[in-house]
Every structure is written in C-alpha cells, then in structure tokens.
C-alpha cells in the first residue's frame, strides 16, 4: 500500500484506540477517557450527533409520504436490509444499504448494520436482561464450545456499573435465571399479561412472567440530567433517535460523556483496514485506516487497542490483520478466529385471543413488553435438544375496524371501531450452539470498495435449532391453552440467521490459548494490548438480548486495561 499518510506520527498517536463507536465501543471510550487516557474512536460511518441529526424524530405519521413503507425500487435494490423490522421510512437513513458493504453468503445470512456514530445503539430494541450462572456455565455443563473463563460474580458489579449509567427500568423479580439489577421504576404489564402471569404461576410455577427490563429512564431524573438526558416519554419511536434521550444510545450517553473529559477524539469515515503488529515489540502498535470518502490510508498509533467493530466486522478486522508473526489473522495461533459463530433463533411466534377482561383496555405506549426467562433445561437437561429459549410476551386489547362497504357505510365503519378480544402474542429467543463449521472468513479474491477482502459468511440452523423451535411452539401452545387463550395460531418463518441482529462469536473467550482467542479479561492471549469486547468475544449466546453483556464486558475490560497499563504490564 503506497502513500501511507504517516506524517506526524506523534500527531496520530494516542494512548488508546477504540475501533467502533457503537454499543460496546462507546463504553470502552467512556471508561478509557474517564481514566485519563487520550482515546481515539474510529467510526467507519458518518457523524450522527445526538438531537441534531435525528431528522425524522418529531415527524407525525402523516408526514411520511408513504406512511413508513419503503419504495418498490429500494426493496428490489436492498432485499437484505428490507427484511429488518425497523427498516422503514422513518429510520432507513440509519441502516447500511446492501450495496454499501457487500459480503458473500455461503448460506443465507441477513447481516443488518448501522454505520454511523453510535452504530446500531441508535436502533436497538433496548432489552437488557442480565446473564446468570445458568448461562455462563452452559458450555461446561452441556459439553459444547469451551468453558467461559468467567462466572456471574465476575461481572455482577460491572452489570451494576453499566445499568446505573445507562438507566434500566425493571422490576426486582428475585429470579435466579435473570438476576435483578440496578433498576429504575418498572413499566406495567398489561391486564392480559398480568392475567397470563397469574395463570402461569398456577399451572407452570417454574415459568415466571416478568416485565422486560429495558434501557429507558423512568426515575432518578436528576442523575440522568447530568448526561443531558431526560425521562422516557413512551413515544416508542426510539429508532428515529430520541429527542429526550429517554433510551440509551452511545450518541445520547457514553460518547458525549467521554467527550466532556477532553480526552476523546472521534474520527468518522474511518474504515479500519487492519491492526498493525510489530514483530520486534511483540505487540500491536496501531491501526491502519482507509478514509471512506477519499480512500486515503492513514496509520494511527496507541498503547492499547479495543476492537468493537460489531461482531462480524471485528472478525473481519482481525482476519485482515496479518503479519509475519500472525499470517492467519491477529492472535490466531489457535486457528479458531472466525469460527464458532452463533446467533439467536427468532423463527417462531404464537398468538391467540382471550375473551375475558372485557371491561379493560390499556392507554398510551410502552417501550418494552412481557418477558418469559428461559425455563427449558434450566436446572438440568430435560429434553432431546440442548439449552432453551426465552420468550417475548405481549398482550393488548384489540380494536377492530370493519373494512366492509364503500361510501357512507365504509366511513361509518372506519370511524366507529369496536373493542375486540384481548390479543396475546409471543416470539422465541432461542440459544444456538456455536460450532466450528459456523464461520466467517475472508474471500480470496473479492474486495470491497476500500480494497479490503469481502467476508464469506456460513452460519446455519442445525437439528438442535429445529427441535428447539418445535418445543417452543408446543410448550407455548400448552401454556396459552392453560390460560384459556383460544384461536391459537403459530408460525415458523424460517428467517435466515442474522435477522435477529444478535450475531456473536468468532473471537471467543476461554481459559486456554489453544482453544480460545481471548482470556477472562477479553484480552487477546497472544497480543495482550488488544482487547475484543463486542459480540465477537461471546463463547456462547444464551437467550438474553446481548447488548447489556457486551457493555458490561467492555467496561470491565477497559478498567483492567487501564490498571495493566499503570503496572506497565502491557
């Protein structure tokens, strides 16, 4: 690569570099800069400044020319991103279009991405359930992947650290499967969900129903005012960016906080080509960046590097970071880089009607829903498949409009909708097993527009997923019936992996450098000044929405890295 822009090496030198400004990168940046480290955050996308760059946030539904629907042309050009539930007229500008960053699908995989300040933290579903030891002990107990090098006690204080700062609304349920955290006041279950919870307590005492813990501010307002954030207003238009800062995103919270320390530099349009490894010094010395607009390469240097590019892109960066010492990718003596990928199985859903509670309705909107923590195979193995699923649960009073007729008859029908029965629905969130054959790797020929190899993704469902999907539908059907729900309908949409937007693994944590890439501090076994603290580090997936755990591991690892720097160990 000719003409590397290396002028003024000092000018391009920082204490720490964080690759990626999303959910976990924002946390690494906050912790490092608060600890006094001059920190450079590299973001491959454009700048999206909190409040200023949310162009649709206050638009009324009728101000969207197509009422949210994407154009036929857009759907034809971008079949992948169009399958994402949130890719609509109001938030489409926060998603990567298919052509913008091509990849090869060795098996169908919907890779949903957001390249901008804050990444996908602008767009997430904001559910934040903690992991427990039922999750961390999963691989060891059930004999898959490798043992996690950490347990709940290692991360519990860091869960608290993160929850306090981001703001988590939740109810203290006292459950071992999803431990309680630092909660702001909970949101309410609907009458239907509360009834279902009660019915489960009667018929299935080991299957509790709780209100989903979500990253929304519902109390302690003075504390969050210091971040410039206000309370959640229940608009439920989060994907547009929140003008109140009511939900957590890097844009509203960690990045501006880090900026206030004076130690943060945020560089946009910075596509990371690779991490630079110095064979003599036996450590990483910096990061090579291609400017997304000018294609100019620039090298940046730092003592420590955090890789938070978003699971799959983190794999890409490491695979493309080759040197004499690491010809197969950085820290990849084990040969496991890019392997043991996994995701969450969101294929199945169920719904039905309930005839009771006729005298009640709900009012307003709610940024969360009911949640049924994993109950399958929780204490011990009890089915012919491994692990289990959590379930989202949502019950609402239907309002039914009769669309028959035309003219005055139709108009009268439209303007006089009637209360129908309560409707209850659920979707599965299944754990999938990371396998050696589930991989991302570099294509040997195809390059992207920045001359970086394209990724080949090969991640598929297996027999365990099929059995688990069936079991979810059977168990939920029984549970719905036990609660007197009728007109039950089930669906398995067989969506491609990836559409869950919970892709994980490839750079897993573990105890042994032969069978893992990261140690218990998310530090590369073989390159101790490189840390991976996004979804790529996940040894297994469990069922919980993973962002809270990524943020927690990022905060924990960043503080460890600071200590190690002070001790001059790295």
């Amino acid at each position, binding site marked *: 690569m000719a003409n590397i822009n290396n002028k003024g090496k000092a000018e391009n030198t920082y204490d720490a570099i964080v690759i990626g400004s999303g959910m976990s990168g924002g946390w690494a940046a906050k912790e490092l800069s608060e600890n006094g480290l001059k920190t450079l955050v590299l973001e491959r996308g454009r700048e999206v400044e909190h409040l200023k760059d949310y162009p649709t946030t*206050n638009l*009324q*539904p*009728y101000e969207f*020319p*197509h*009422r949210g*629907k*994407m*154009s*036929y*042309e857009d759907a034809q050009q971008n079949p992948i991103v169009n399958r994402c539930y949130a890719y609509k007229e109001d938030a489409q500008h926060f998603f990567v279009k298919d052509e913008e960053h091509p990849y090869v699908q060795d098996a169908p995989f919907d890779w949903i991405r957001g390249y901008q300040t804050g990444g996908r933290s602008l767009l997430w579903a904001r559910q934040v359930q903690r992991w427990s030891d039922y999750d961390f002990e999963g691989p060891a107990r059930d004999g898959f992947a490798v043992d996690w090098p950490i347990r709940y006690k290692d991360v519990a204080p860091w869960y608290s650290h993160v929850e306090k700062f981001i703001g988590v609304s939740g109810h203290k349920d006292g459950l071992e499967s999803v431990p309680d955290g630092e909660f702001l006041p909970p*949101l*309410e*279950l*609907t*009458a239907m*969900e*509360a009834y279902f919870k009660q019915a489960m307590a009667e018929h299935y005492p080991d299957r509790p129903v709780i209100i989903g813990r979500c990253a929304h501010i519902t109390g302690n307002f003075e504390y969050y005012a210091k971040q410039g954030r206000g309370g959640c*207003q*229940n*608009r439920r*238009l989060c994907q547009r960016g929140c003008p109140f800062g009511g939900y957590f995103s890097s844009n509203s919270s960690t990045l501006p906080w880090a900026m206030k320390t004076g130690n943060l530099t945020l560089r946009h349009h910075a596509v990371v080509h690779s991490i630079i490894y110095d064979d003599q010094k036996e450590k990483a010395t910096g990061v090579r960046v291609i400017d997304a607009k000018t294609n100019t390469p620039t090298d940046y240097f730092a003592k420590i590097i955090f890789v938070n590019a978003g699971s799959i892109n983190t794999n890409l960066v490491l695979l493309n970071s080759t040197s004499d010492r690491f010809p197969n990718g950085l820290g990849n003596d084990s040969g496991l880089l890019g392997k043991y990928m996994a995701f969450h199985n969101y294929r199945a859903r169920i719904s039905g009607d309930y005839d009771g509670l006729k*005298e*009640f*309705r*709900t*009012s*307003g*909107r*709610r940024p969360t829903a009911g949640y049924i923590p994993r109950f399958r195979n929780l204490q011990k193995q009890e089915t012919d498949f491994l692990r289990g699923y959590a379930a989202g649960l949502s019950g609402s009073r239907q*309002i039914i*409009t009769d*669309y028959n*007729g*035309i*003219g*005055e008859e*139709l*108009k009268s029908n*439209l*303007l*006089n*909708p*009637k*209360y129908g029965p309560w409707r209850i629905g659920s979707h599965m969130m299944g754990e999938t097993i990371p396998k050696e054959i589930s991989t991302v790797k570099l294509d040997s020929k195809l390059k992207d527009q920045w001359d970086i190899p394209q990724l080949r993704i090969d991640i598929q469902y297996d027999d365990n997923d099929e059995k688990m999907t069936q079991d979810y539908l059977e168990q939920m059907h029984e549970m719905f019936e036990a609660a007197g729900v009728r007109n039950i309908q089930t669906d398995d949409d067989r969506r491609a992996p990836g559409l869950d937007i919970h892709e994980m693994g490839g750079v897993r944590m573990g105890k042994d450098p032969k069978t893992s890439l990261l140690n218990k501090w998310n530090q590369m076994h073989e390159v101790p000044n490189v840390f991976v603290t996004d979804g790529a580090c996940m040894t297994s997936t469990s069922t919980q929405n993973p962002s809270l755990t990524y943020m927690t591991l990022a905060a924990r690892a960043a503080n460890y890295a600071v200590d190690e720097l002070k001790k001059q160990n790295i």
Partner: protein
Amino acid sequence: MNRRDILKQLAILSGGIMLVPSCDFSKNDVLKAYDNLQITADHKATLQKLCNTIIPSDTDHIGADELKLSDFVLVMINDCYSPEDQRIFTEGLKNLDQYSLEQTRQNFQSMSSAHANELINQILNHSDPDVEHSGDQVVVDFEQIRYCVRTTKHLTVQGYMTSEYIMKEVMPYKLVPGPFHGKLRIEENEKANIYG
C-alpha cells in the same frame, strides 16, 4: 422539484381540469409527474371520482376530495408497487369508464354518487367473472378493473385513516402519549380510538 411540490402542482392542475371538463386540449395530456404510470388528466379525474365514491364527504366529516386522497393513491402506486402491478392498475383505471358505459350506459365521471356507489360495489363484490364477456368477445378486462378498484379502496382507506385530519381531529394520535397504563376500565359509551 421534489415530489411534494409536484403533487401540489398536480392538485392545482387537476382541480382546474375538473372545472373545465370539456377541455380536450388538457384532457389527454399525460401529466408529467405520472409519466411512469401514463395517467392522463382524464384518468386522474376518474380516480378522484372513485376515491370520493369510496370515502365521500358528508356534513360531519370531510372525505377523499378534500384530503386529496387520489394523489396519495397515485404516489403509493408509483413508488411502492411493481411495474406489473402498476400496469394492471393503470389499465384498470383506463377501462373503468368504458366498463361503466357498457354496464350502465352512463359515464362514470358524471354519474350520480348513488349510481357510482352501486357500480363500484358491484365491481368489488362481483363473484362471476363471465359477466364482462359479451358473447365470445372480451369487452374489457374485468380483472384489471377489479384490481384497480380494490387497490384504490385499500389505499384510499389507508390514506384516510392516516391523514392529518383523522389523526388530529377524529382519533387523536399523540407523539408524546403520556404515561402507559396496562389496565384501565372502559367507560360506558366510550369511543374506541385506534391511536389511543
């Protein structure tokens, strides 16, 4: 010029045409904005009549004409439907007048609202696809007409229910809805609000 401006112009233009329906010069002028759909001023007037037959105004509530729902229908067809669906829609729209003449000996655009209501209901509820055949000859393609009318009904209803008028004045939608309540007792005679 963006689509919004085009629509504004179009509304003015087609409004003018309706005042002078015999003006042959503009009648078949393909409106620039709808090159793609090949919608002429004449077809636009047919569509307006169709929308207003589906959702007329009355003493209590404004309807399709005031809300310019035919513009919404065309924008949606033009931007969100496949070329094949667009072709069928446009063919159906073109043939609606002809069909009306054959079935009722009246011009759809000028027939009374009662007659228009009857004709459109008949098209929507038609179960026998053979009726539009006169002897062995297909006079007009009824399936295309029915597709056009059904699609227009769907989009007119969508445009109506998501109009500023409905969402502000009839069934208020609030961007900031206030606190969430999971269990509220329904008052007697309380009107259900789909946006409440």
